[in-house]
């Protein structure tokens, strides 16, 4: 049984199709990222899986429980960290965690024990008794994730967990999420490609409500880009060498002594050796990896941040 399963999951708001016939099968213990630009349908998909929105068509289940027919069974099993940092601003960390824990039916002792551990992990112990309205964005975000975890859910939904955070705070949250991998099923939405790349077991690229690509980061890159590329900075390139390179490789781009060579099964050593053999000075050379953004652009023709 998959932890999360959707079949033709669709949500329409009047004329707008926010999520369009999405099929997902997320394994237990998997960290799955939905990557897409703002408005792609990521949050709407999560809201349906958290029983906050009823699908227009299709079905969705979490650990075998249908989100429409058995919403309270689903809610018992999930933890949610919403996109906006939503906390009770005049409560302190303990009180925010206790609220969620006790609403999930945990005993006071259990809530205390789990809260203590989470506050230590999230580095919030020193400010645990302060009202959270005085916290920075990063601290609020960490507490929000702790609130999603306090009930020890089997399935965790993290909607843009690092949105608006500085790189340092973002990295700290990534490190924590990475520690959860394998123990919990995590569905993470993001529009940061580095985030999806760094954390995910598998990635679903979503655009205009549709899943346009699905696989591991490497699978997405290799299946999208059949060719690899290499950038070379040279000193004394002759027209003869350029002509020869054009014959040897699939595509060649040149600008001010810089070469960009595209070819399937590109060999770094082979190119450097060839250039040396033809008397060309090589100042620098590097094989280039496509990024998930390149994948997104290649598939949708749009920038990820559009």
């Amino acid at each position, binding site marked *: 049984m998959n932890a999360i399963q959707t079949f033709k999951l669709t949500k329409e708001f009047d004329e707008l199709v926010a999520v369009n016939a999405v099929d997902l099968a997320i394994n237990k213990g998997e960290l799955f990222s939905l990557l897409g630009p703002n408005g792609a349908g990521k949050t709407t998909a999560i809201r349906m899986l958290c029983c906050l929105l009823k699908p227009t068509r299709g079905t969705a289940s979490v650990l075998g429980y249908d989100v429409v027919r058995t919403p309270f069974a689903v809610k018992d099993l999930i933890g949610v960290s919403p996109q906006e940092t939503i*906390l009770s601003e005049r409560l302190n960390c303990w*009180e925010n965690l206790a609220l969620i824990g006790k609403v999930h039916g945990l005993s006071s002792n259990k809530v205390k024990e789990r809260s203590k551990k989470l506050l230590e992990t999230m580095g919030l112990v020193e400010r645990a008794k302060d009202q959270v309205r005085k916290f920075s964005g990063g601290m609020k975000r960490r507490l929000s994730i702790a609130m999603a975890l306090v009930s020890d859910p089997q399935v965790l939904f993290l909607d843009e967990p690092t949105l608006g955070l500085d790189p340092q705070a973002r990295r700290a949250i990534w490190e924590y999420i990475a520690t959860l991998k394998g123990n919990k099923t995590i569905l993470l939405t993001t529009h940061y490609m580095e985030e999806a790349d760094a954390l995910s077991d598998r990635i679903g690229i979503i655009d205009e409500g549709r899943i346009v690509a699905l696989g591991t980061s490497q699978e997405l890159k290799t299946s999208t880009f059949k060719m690899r590329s290499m950038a070379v900075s040279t000193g004394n390139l002759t027209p003869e060498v350029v002509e020869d390179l054009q014959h040897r490789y699939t595509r060649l781009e040149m600008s001010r002594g810089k070469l960009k060579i595209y070819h399937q099964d590109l060999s770094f050593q082979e190119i450097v050796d060839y250039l040396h053999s033809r008397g060309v000075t090589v100042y620098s050379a590097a094989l280039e990896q496509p990024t998930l953004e390149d994948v997104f652009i290649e598939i949708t023709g749009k920038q990820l941040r559009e």
Partner: protein
Amino acid sequence: MKSWEIGKRNLKEIYRNPVLLGFLLGMPLAFMLVFTTAFGGQQTGPIGLSIVDEAHTQNSSAFIQYLGATQAITLRQPIYSQESQAQNDLKDGKISFYLTIPPGFGAANQSQQTVNLQLVYEEANPMLGLQLKAIIEAVGSQFLGVAPALNVQLTAAASEISNPVVNFFFPGIAVFGLMILISTAAEIIAEDREKGFLSRMFTTPARPWDFIAGYSLPFIPVLIISALIYLGVGMGLGLTVVGNLGYAFLIFFLIGLSSIGIGMIVGSLVKSASQTGVSWIFIVPISMISGAYFSVDSVPPAVRDFAGALPFIHAIDASRAVINGASLSAIMPDMYWLVGWAVALFATGVVLFRRTMVS
């Protein structure tokens, strides 16, 4: 209990918010202080006078009309035919003075005999009683055309009220204070909806009833504490509770429930917390036309009728009456209004709030 946890959180959000508390407690207390200080012991406008016409003659009617035309006096309706009715209303705090025109008023006037009238006033109002006596003697002599043919006997009705100004303002301002619960409840609900806190809570296994209880019950201790604080300050300013305090609390409780219901309605309908400010457009004028700060006799009949269809005027009238000594049976008509509105508004609030949980 899940509802208890949600309710506890909401209670903390209220009592840790100085702005909300300032509105909820500070404003009514400031009003109480300002009004009782500003108007304490002074009559600023015409004196309200009730009439008991035991003569029932053309002459007595003409005299009443003549009195009514005097700027210094406002004749209060209805004109009583029996003194016992006026006595009861004086006891209930509904009126402060009444003038009895005895049988034989017309005959005494025609035979040039001295006409004896009886002016009864609340014991706590001797200065105004004397002032009124002088006015009636002057106006009466003018009416009869011969001076001093009119003798107004001044009688003090027993009253335990030490400061009638405080006893007048306290119930009105206490009800106004409880009307502020409209804005408080609306703001908490609207803010939690706007900021997504409710959505977050909807992803937990809490049931709809947990939310309904968690978002309505915390206001009840707030209501009770507010009423107690108002009462404490009122007593400090000289409030005399002659009647049954329990009835007064029951009235405050019922009007508080209505206010919470309206707050839930507003909070469920508005798009953002800032829009809950519209509730003040309702709270302030309604408290005014409901007689919180001045007698409703002075507002146009159409406005008075409108206010009469709402619960607040009934809460003010009934609490004023029970504090001044009226029995439960005397305020039963007001209680029907209060119970009816409390049930209707609270139920509507629950239904609309429930609807916010359904996408």
